[in-house]
């Protein structure tokens, strides 16, 4: 029985460590996907002349789960609501942020980008997308750095912390 409890504690803490390290990995992946999405949006706006809601629907088909949900909600809000673009953007951002692994900076960049969306003509919009892409690029480098440093540490920390608790209680 004692061994069973010890095993349970170690498994739980290891799992917690893996979960924490997963957040770092997910953040890099999601930032990369966000960049891809914004580049696609730029292409749709500048070369494809697609309306924003359709463009976002297309983008939501291109990328994978947590982020695709964001673009899907955004396009839905645009097509069947009477909100402004930035309101719809902010609302869908608020709704999906809990499912994403982004931190405050990333969300701030997205919010600022959303405020410029649909306010200008095509060329200005392209410039705004470029700026957002540039910011996201920097965040991605940051996230990669953090991933290299902390991903392994969190995993080790989980296992070792569990081991310490078990030894203390034994």
């Amino acid at each position, binding site marked *: 029985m004692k061994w069973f409890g010890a095993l349970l504690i170690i498994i739980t803490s290891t799992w917690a460590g893996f979960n924490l390290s997963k957040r770092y990995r997910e953040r890099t992946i999601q930032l990369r996907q966000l960049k891809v999405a914004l580049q696609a949006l730029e292409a749709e706006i500048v070369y494809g002349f697609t309306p924003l809601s359709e463009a976002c629907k297309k983008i939501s088909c291109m990328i994978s789960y947590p982020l695709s949900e964001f673009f899907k909600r955004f396009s839905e809000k645009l097509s069947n609501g009477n909100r402004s673009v930035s309101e719809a953007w902010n609302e869908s951002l608020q709704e999906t942020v809990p499912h994403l692994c982004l931190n405050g900076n990333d969300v701030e960049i997205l919010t600022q980008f959303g405020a410029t969306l649909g306010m200008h003509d095509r060329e200005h919009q392209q410039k705004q997308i470029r700026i957002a892409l540039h910011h996201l690029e920097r965040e991605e480098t940051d996230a990669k750095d953090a991933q290299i440093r902390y991903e392994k*540490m969190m995993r080790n920390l989980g296992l070792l912390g569990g081991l310490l608790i078990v030894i203390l209680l*034994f």
Partner: protein
Amino acid sequence: MPKDINIIFQIAGIGIVVAMLHTVLKQMGKEEYAHWVTLIGFIIVLFIVITILDDLFHKIKGVFLFQS
């Protein structure tokens, strides 16, 4: 007697785990946390040792002063 052996192993285990935690944290550049972890591990071990020593003193007292 088997309880005492267990305590020795327990302290050794704490030492090993804390040393590994220290190395991991130091490698990742979190030296201040590493020092705190080492300090807390040391305090815990000290606590265990002091409890046992207290037991020993009480026994000595009981033997020489005929108290219990």
